[in-house]
């Protein structure tokens, strides 16, 4: 029998901020596995620990306890695995999408996508070709040379998605990607993510607190006070 290769494996993940009396347990003993191509929603009230979970998986926030395995590589086991190049793992295996699009204001749409490719050692021409292709596929062919301030919220978020996808990451982490958008644009972004999960065979974790946005997701995690309940199992 084949061993299932997961995109994300989280075992007994705990994140405690601070020490002593002021310590806050943001994530308590979370365990779950996500397969490539799976689209997972993370729902929960404010302060429940959604962002903490995402950043711990995203190699930004060091887990206090437990294991995190990304694409077969153990990145954390009671703290970061020693000798790990976190930046390299982030640019090669992970794609990030934020609530605010976080595009670089002094780069055009095209350049914002190209930079993610260039830091991953693609030549300028390769980067330009791939970035153009991605943006065109996201219906932004007419916006390549616009600065972020000249883009609508939905357009900017699609550029951010293009940037997150640029290096064909195994895992895409999105923290409230639709919060700054109206319902229609929000739904468009969500269906785009769904399509990407299938087409690119990426595991996608999407944090949201809007129940209307999660239809069609493979699984939904409900987070309450740092504890995760898998609502719709697979």
């Amino acid at each position, binding site marked *: 029998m084949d061993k299932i290769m997961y995109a994300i494996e989280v075992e007994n993940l705990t994140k405690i901020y601070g020490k002593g009396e002021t310590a806050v347990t943001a994530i308590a003993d979370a365990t779950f596995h996500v397969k490539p191509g799976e689209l997972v929603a993370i729902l929960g009230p404010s302060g429940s620990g959604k*962002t903490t979970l995402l*950043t711990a998986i*995203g190699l*930004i*926030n060091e887990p206090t306890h437990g294991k995190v395995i990304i694409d077969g590589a153990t990145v954390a086991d009671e703290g970061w695995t020693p000798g790990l190049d976190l*930046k*390299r*793992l*982030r*640019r*090669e295996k*992970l794609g*990030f999408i*934020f*609530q*605010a699009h*976080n595009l*670089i*204001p*002094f*780069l055009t749409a095209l*350049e914002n996508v*190209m*930079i*993610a490719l*260039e*830091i*991953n050692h693609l030549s*300028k021409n390769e*980067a330009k070709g791939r970035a153009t292709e991605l943006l065109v596929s996201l219906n932004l062919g007419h916006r390549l040379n616009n*600065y972020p301030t000249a883009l609508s919220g939905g357009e900017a978020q699609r550029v951010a998605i293009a*940037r997150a996808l640029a290096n064909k990451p195994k895992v895409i982490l999105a*923290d409230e990607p639709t919060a700054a958008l109206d319902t229609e644009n929000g739904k468009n972004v969500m269906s785009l993510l769904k399509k990407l999960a299938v087409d690119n065979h990426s595991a996608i974790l999407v944090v949201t607190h809007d129940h209307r946005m999660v239809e069609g997701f493979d699984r939904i995690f409900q987070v309450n006070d740092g504890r995760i309940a898998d609502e719709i199992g697979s």
Partner: protein
Amino acid sequence: MNLAIRDIRYHRGRFILTSIGLGLLLGVVISMGGIYRGLFADALAVLHFTKADIWVVQQNTNGPFAESSRIPEDIKYRIKAVPGVADAAPLSFQTIQIERQGKPFRFFLIGYDLNGFGGPPVILAGRDIRQKHYEMVVAKAMKMEIGEKIHLGLHDYTVVGITGKVVSSGGDPAAYVSLADAQDIQFKKDNDAVRNDRARIGANLAGIQSLSPSQAKFLKLNIAGITESTHTVNTVVARLAPGANLKEVQERISRWNHFRPISVEEQTKILTKGMIEKARMQLGLFRIILLVISAVIIALIIYTSTLDKIKVIATLKLIGSQNRVIIGMILQQSLLMGVIAYAIGYGLILLTYENFPRRIVLEPFDLQALFVIVMAICMIASFVGIRKALKVEPAEALGG
């Protein structure tokens, strides 16, 4: 992709303005260096153009530039006779300030022996002085036309030629006349003053009881010689014969004990160490202060522009940028600002330095050294920004 240039392109207005401001500052720094070199060049101009090896001046003085020196003109024959001396020529110097076209007109009058050396180094227009009297060659900076007349002492002098950048150690442009004319202008009194002098000295002599009538008569005859003698010069310059030993010749001249033979090297020291040392130190101090100000400004600009970019830097880190991408962005911006500001400052001085009231000499070495210093300042100044940038956590990109 060069992030530094993209950022500058996006904020070009701000970048250009700061670069212009810094450029003006560096322009002042460059001009101060130029003024310092100019002081040097001015101070040494007459010394160099005269092309003499020894300056013979009055005993115990640092003449003729730093102190006044008076020696008899006919010393030139004795100097010429010294073994090892090829040629000797008398020179007189005086600063003159008159009114011309309603404005003070200051220049440095050099009197030279028409048969000797020490005259105008070049003739740019017109001709050399040919007649023994009332002709004049002026430096270009005096802005006089050939044929123009000027009244000095008791006579009118006509400009017959224009020479180059000869100036006094104080920066006043030089004019040349024959030695005899210069002595006239310097020493000759008008007729009333001569009569008064004669009467006064005559009366004094007549009052000396012990003089015999014949002695008194003899003295009275010679009064005219005393009061009208103008055969005094400020220095006699000498050129050595090929192979002559400077020290030996100096030794021979000073052994007479009435005159001091100053070598060009000593004269240079007197002019630079003594006369312009304070100005040099002042300029040096200002330059250092301005460079420190530039450094502080650059550091502040780079630091605030880094603060403006915290979110950008955090995002770059989050998507996995190497530190060198971020350091490169900050460092390159800082260096680029330095290069552009330097170019603006240099361009500005290059366009204007001819019109400065004092001579500005732009030495390639000074310019290169300043460029290296500016680059070093930019590099050091960018460290504060880089330090801040390296401390930024990728998580800072997440906050709204």
